C-alpha cells in the first residue's frame, strides 16, 4: 500500500511535468495533398476601417483563389516589431507581414528570413507603382518587400491660425519660415515638437540634411557610414540657428509626439500650436486627438522650405513607406497576394481605410483631401525621394542621431557632438 503522502507527492510530480507539455504548437503552413494553401498574415491596423480593409481584401482574394486560405492576425503597432523578431528567429514567422524596411529589413535579409520576390513582381505592378516606390523594398537590386503606401514628411499646419497671424502663403524658404514663426509665436501658437520621443526632433535634422547634402552624399553615407562630408555639419548649424529663435512649444523636451492632448500632435489638433514637422501619418493622429475625434477641418500641408547654401535639391522630399514582405518559407502564393495588394481597387480601398497615399498611380486619382493632394503634388514634383535617414542608415545610426540632436536642443551638446555620436555608433553596430 502506498501511503497517502507518497501518492500526493507523485501527483505533484506528475502535474509539474504535465505543465511543460503544454508549450509549443505547430504551424499548419504550406500545401496539403489537395493543393490547398494556408498562409498567415500580420497587420497593424488598430482602427475599425483598417481592420475592415484587410478582412475584405483577404475575403475577395480567397473568393478569386478558392485553394488559398489566409489567416489574419492583428498585432498592436507597438508590439509588432518585437513579436515579429521573436517569430522570425524561432522559425514560426507569419507568411505575409508588415515591413518597415531599411536597416531592420537588411538585418532580416542577412539572416535569410525574407523571400526574394524580385522575379515575382508582375509587369502590371511595375507599371502601376513605378520604380521609385518599388525601390524602397529593394536591397542590392533584389526585392524583398513591396510598398503599399507612401508617407512623405513635411509641415502640417492649421490654416486658421496662419490666417489669424497674417501668414497668407505657406513659407517656401527658410527666411519666410522664420518670419512666419515670429508672427505665429506672437499669437501664442508656436511650432509643435515632441522631443520626448526624440525622433520628431531628429526629423528636423534629417530635413536640414536633405537640403544641405546632395543625393550623392546621402547615398555615400549610406554605403560607408561615414559622415565626414561638411554638409552634415552645415545641417547641424542650420538646425542650431533655427532652434536659437526658440520656435518650439514650451517644454518641448518633455512633450511626447502622439500621446494625449498635451502631445505635439495634440497641440496642433487643439489649435495650441500652429504647425508640426511630421510624416504623412500625422493627419490620422491629429484627427484622433481633436475634441470631437474628427479630422482637423483646417489642416494643410507644405513641404520643408528651401534652405540657402545647401547642395540638396530644394524640391527633394523625405518620407517612408509601409510595405509588406513574405517570409523565407512562405509558399509562392504569397508574392501573388502582394501583387494583388497593389492593384487599383485594393489600393483605393487602402487609401480610404488608412487615409494614406496609395502607391498605385491610378489609385492616386481617388484622393480628395486638400492636404493629401498637396502631399501628392510635392511627391510628384520631387526629383528624388529619400527614405527617413534612420531607416536608410539603420537603427544604430538613427539612435545616435536621436541622442545627438536631443543633446544639442537641450543645450548639452553641439553640432560636432551629433557627428561624433554618429561615428561612435558605427563602431558599436
Amino acid at each position, binding site marked *: 500500500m502506498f501511503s497517502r*503522502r507518497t501518492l500526493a507527492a507523485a501527483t505533484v510530480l506528475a502535474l509539474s511535468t504535465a505543465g511543460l507539455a503544454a508549450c509549443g504548437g505547430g504551424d499548419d503552413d504550406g500545401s496539403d495533398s489537395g493543393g490547398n494553401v494556408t498562409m498567415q498574415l500580420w497587420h497593424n491596423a488598430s482602427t475599425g476601417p483598417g481592420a475592415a480593409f484587410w478582412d475584405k481584401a483577404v475575403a475577395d482574394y480567397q473568393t478569386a483563389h478558392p485553394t488559398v486560405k489566409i489567416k489574419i492576425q492583428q498585432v498592436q503597432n507597438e508590439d509588432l516589431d518585437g513579436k515579429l523578431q521573436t517569430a522570425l*528567429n524561432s522559425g514560426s514567422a507569419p507568411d505575409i507581414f508588415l515591413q518597415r524596411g531599411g536597416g*531592420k529589413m537588411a538585418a532580416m535579409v542577412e539572416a535569410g528570413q525574407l523571400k526574394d520576390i524580385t522575379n515575382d513582381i508582375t509587369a502590371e505592378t511595375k507599371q502601376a507603382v513605378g520604380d521609385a516606390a518599388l525601390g524602397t523594398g529593394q536591397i542590392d537590386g533584389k526585392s524583398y518587400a513591396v510598398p503599399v503606401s507612401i508617407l512623405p514628411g513635411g509641415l502640417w499646419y492649421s490654416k486658421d491660425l496662419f490666417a489669424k497671424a497674417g501668414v497668407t502663403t505657406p513659407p517656401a524658404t527658410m527666411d519666410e519660415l522664420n518670419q512666419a514663426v515670429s508672427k505665429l509665436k506672437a499669437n501664442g501658437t508656436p511650432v509643435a515638437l515632441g522631443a520626448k520621443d526624440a525622433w520628431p526632433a531628429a526629423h528636423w535634422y534629417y530635413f536640414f540634411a536633405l537640403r544641405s547634402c546632395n543625393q550623392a552624399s546621402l547615398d555615400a553615407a549610406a554605403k560607408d557610414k561615414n559622415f565626414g562630408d561638411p554638409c552634415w555639419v552645415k545641417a547641424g548649424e542650420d538646425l542650431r540657428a533655427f532652434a536659437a529663435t526658440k520656435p518650439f512649444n514650451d517644454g518641448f523636451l*518633455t512633450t511626447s509626439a502622439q500621446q494625449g492632448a498635451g502631445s505635439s500632435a495634440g497641440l496642433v489638433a487643439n489649435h495650441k500650436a500652429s504647425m508640426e514637422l511630421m510624416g504623412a501619418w500625422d493627419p490620422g493622429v491629429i484627427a484622433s486627438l481633436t475634441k470631437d475625434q474628427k479630422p482637423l477641418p483646417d489642416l494643410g500641408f507644405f513641404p520643408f522650405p528651401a534652405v540657402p547654401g545647401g547642395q540638396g535639391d530644394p524640391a527633394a522630399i523625405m518620407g517612408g513607406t509601409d510595405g509588406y514582405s513574405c517570409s523565407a518559407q512562405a509558399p509562392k502564393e504569397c508574392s501573388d497576394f502582394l501583387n494583388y495588394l497593389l492593384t487599383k481597387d485594393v489600393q483605393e480601398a487602402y487609401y480610404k481605410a488608412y487615409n494614406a497615399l496609395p502607391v498605385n498611380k491610378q489609385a492616386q486619382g481617388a484622393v480628395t483631401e486638400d492636404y493629401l493632394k498637396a502631399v501628392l503634388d510635392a511627391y510628384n514634383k520631387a526629383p528624388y525621394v529619400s527614405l527617413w535617414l534612420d531607416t536608410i542608415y539603420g537603427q544604430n545610426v538613427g539612435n545616435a542621431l536621436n541622442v545627438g540632436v536631443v543633446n544639442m536642443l537641450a543645450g548639452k551638446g553641439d553640432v560636432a557632438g551629433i557627428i561624433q555620436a554618429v561615428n561612435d555608433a558605427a563602431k558599436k553596430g
Partner: protein
Amino acid sequence: MTVTEVRAGGGVRTPPPVRPRRRGIGWKQRLEILALSGPAILMFASFVIFPVVMAAYYGFYRWKGYGPPTDFVGLDNYVTILQDPTFHDALWHNGQVVVLSLVLQGPIAVGLALLLNQKMRGQSLIRVLIFVPYVISEVIVGTAWALLLQTNGAVNDVLRSIGLDGLAQDWLANPSLAIWTLMLILTWKYIGFAVILFLAGMQNIPEELSEAAAVDGATFWQTQWRITLPLLGPTIRIWAFLSIIGALQLFDLVYIIWGQYVASTAGTSTMATYMVVEGRNAANYGYGNAVAVVLFTISMIIALVYQRFVLRRDSEGQA
C-alpha cells in the same frame, strides 16, 4: 553559555557530548523534496538562470537581433561600455539615487513608523494613504507625474494661479532640478514599503522592554532611541539592502517620465535606461546584453559585499 558544575571535593567530569547521528533521509522524502521544489527550480532555471547565461553569451557578439549571432567580437562590447562617458553618467546617476534613497527615505520612514506605532485616531487611514503609492503600478505613477510636472502641467498651473510665478519651473528637463524631481517621486512611491517593513519590525519588539524602561524612568524618546531603534536594526539593514538593489536597477519611472533620450540630458538616466537606448533602440542587441551583464555584475558585487559585511550579524542570529 555553558554552565560548569563545580562539585565540592570532586573534579569536574563532564561526559563527552553525544552528537545525534544524522540518519540519511529516505527515498520517500527525497522524492517529496524533488516533487515539491521541482517546479520552482525548473521555473527559476528557465526564467532566471538561462537568460543570464544567454545574455553573457550574446554579450560577446555584435548582433542585430535577427538570426543566430555570428559576428564574434570578444570583449569589444565591454571595452566600449567602460569607456563610454554616457555610461559613466548613468552609473553616477545610479550612485546618486542609491545614496539619496537611503538618506531621504530612511529617516522619514523611521519617523513615520514610530508615529504610526502609537495608538492614535485615524491610524489605519494614514497607513493606507502612505502605502497606496507603493501599490499603484509604476507605469501609472510615471504617466501621472509626467503630466503633472509638464511645463504647462498642473503643478506649474497651480503655482501660477496663486501668484507664485517665480516658483514655476521646468521640473523635468532642467538638469539641476531633475534628479531632485526624480527623488521626490521615488520617495513618495517607495516610502510606504519602508514604513510597512519598519512597522512589522516594531511589532516584533516585546512590550516588556519598553514597559521595563518606563519603570526605570526612561522618557518616550529615550525608549525609542535606546530600545526600539537598536532592535529595529535588522529590519533597517534588510530594507537598505532592498533599496540599494532597487536603485541600481531603476528603469521604469525614468523611462516613462523622461522618455528615451531626455533622461541623459536631464541627468536622470540610469544603467538600465542606457541598456535599452543603446541596446534595443539602436538594435545593437549584443551590446545591450553586454550592458546587462555589467549591470548584473555591479549589482552582484554590491549585494555580496553587503551580505558579507552588514547582513552577516543578522543572519547569524545576533542582533
